[in-house]
């Protein structure tokens, strides 16, 4: 535990089937009269947005948009276009419905809507926002990033080919609406990849250098929910209870890593993400057991506790054996998910060339998440880990 820690999660979390078309009263309470609705083109076509917009209008609140011009990895230009659109139409609140990219676009656009300026120049970094933002309601359509409750956003600077990160307490959304019905038609492979991202958040938050008693008490229940619901949520598309549990787990894990940060698995996944088009969750899927093995020498105690949560009936008593069991269980899940929705098991299967592993190792060491990893992220050792994952 660090010498000093704090815990704050100012986002109001609401959970319920059908909630995404029944929350207009919350907008009124926040004083919103004209709400900008942000989503992406696929969701625009899916028919999910119309009932949401209708339910808001029925309550006498103006709906601006939907603005759906958001790419899979949100960019500076998308954020700027979104903010300009909102300002032109006098939006006084934002509703973001979508995956991580949509939510991050909404968070970043909200900075510009509320305070103006140049996103990259004035705000990239940490604690740079001068004051509170307009109210933002985040409605995730995947159970993964946890962005609905975090104070971070990542936006691609397409011109320079770099990812800009924004970290500020004012970026916490006002409300997170968790509606399992929105996950009704999610493809199994996306359910699996995003779910694995949430799983990785929980595990890395739990073992992070910045973990604290509060974040631990959110990370472990997230793992418990994931253990129960993950496989059914992927293999039984109609099982909305399992999908709802995954949504809840992703949010719990989001609050946990918002406080505790993540570690080496994300460092490697971010570095691979620069060279592969694979989903962030897919990269975590490949890398999680390898990252855990990297941390094994320093995280025995916590992995042993994890094994008791992950395994139905761990008979093992020795800490070391229990710790290794946690990785064993995860590998078993991997094989199962590989079988049912073909998630790749190796880096070579997601377009990563072996020659690039050295560069990836270097980038992983430079990634911001490395600094919170319980074991020092060291280039030659990371390269060996990447070789094993390749």
């Amino acid at each position, binding site marked *: 535990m*660090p010498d000093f820690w*704090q815990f704050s999660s100012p986002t109001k979390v609401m959970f319920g089937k059908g909630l995404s078309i029944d929350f207009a009263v919350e907008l009124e309470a926040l004083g919103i009269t004209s709400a900008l609705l942000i989503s992406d083109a696929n969701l625009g076509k899916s028919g999910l947005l119309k009932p949401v917009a209708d339910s808001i209008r029925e309550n006498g609140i103006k709906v601006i948009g939907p603005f759906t011009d958001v790419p899979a990895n949100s960019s500076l230009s998308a954020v700027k276009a979104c903010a300009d659109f909102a300002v032109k139409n006098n939006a006084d609140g934002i509703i973001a419905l979508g995956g991580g990219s949509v939510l991050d676009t909404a968070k970043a656009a909200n900075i510009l809507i509320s305070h103006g300026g140049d996103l990259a120049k004035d705000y990239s*970094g*940490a*604690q740079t926002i001068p004051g509170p933002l307009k109210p933002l309601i985040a409605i995730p359509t995947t159970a993964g990033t946890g962005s609905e409750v975090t104070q971070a956003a990542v936006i691609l600077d397409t011109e320079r080919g770099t990812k800009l990160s924004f970290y500020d307490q004012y970026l916490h959304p006002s409300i997170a609406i968790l509606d399992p019905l929105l996950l009704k038609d999610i493809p199994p492979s996306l359910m699996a990849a995003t779910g694995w991202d949430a799983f990785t958040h929980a595990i890395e938050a739990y073992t992070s250098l910045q973990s604290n008693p509060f974040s631990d008490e959110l990370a472990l229940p997230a793992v418990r929910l994931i253990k129960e619901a993950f496989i059914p949520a992927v293999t039984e598309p109609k099982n909305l209870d399992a999908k709802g549990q995954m949504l809840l787990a992703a949010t719990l894990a989001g609050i946990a890593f918002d406080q505790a940060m993540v570690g080496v698995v994300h460092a490697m996944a971010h570095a691979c993400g620069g060279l592969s088009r694979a989903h962030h969750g897919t990269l975590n899927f490949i890398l999680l057991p390898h990252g855990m093995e990297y941390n094994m020498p320093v995280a025995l105690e916590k992995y042993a506790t994890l094994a008791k949560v992950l395994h139905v009936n761990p008979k093992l008593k020795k800490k070391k054996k229990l710790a290794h069991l946690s990785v064993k269980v995860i590998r078993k899940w991997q094989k199962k998910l590989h079988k049912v929705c073909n998630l790749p098991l190796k880096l070579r299967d997601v377009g990563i060339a072996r020659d690039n592993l050295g560069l990836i190792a270097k980038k992983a060491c*430079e990634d911001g998440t490395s600094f*919170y990893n319980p074991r020092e992220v060291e280039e030659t050792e990371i390269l060996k880990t990447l070789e094993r994952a390749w």
Partner: protein
Amino acid sequence: MPHFKSSEELKKILGGFFNILVSDEKIGTKLKESKLIIKFNYRHPDLSITVNCALPNAPITYNDSETKPEVEMFMDADTAHKFWLGEVNLVMAIARRQMAVKGPIPRILKLLPVIKPAYKMYKSYLA
């Protein structure tokens, strides 16, 4: 009462210390290898110090509005004083809004191990 009584005193003490750091054989070499241009914006008293590690001798300039920094940091001069005494954890100071960072944070996190010996140096420099 702020630790530094005036911008002049802050410039003399912290600026002087930065000059020692960049010319230190171990720390200075590593700082120059980073090629980082960093600007520290202090409040109470007000002063900004730019350290340009992208140039061979890593020149230090004050209230410099011409050199374009890659990373900018904002903090009270007192926080800076405590930081160099080794009493402030950077990550925590950011979380508590005692420090703000503009630009890529990993660039400065990476330098933390490099400047570790500087905390001791600062103590003996002040003595």
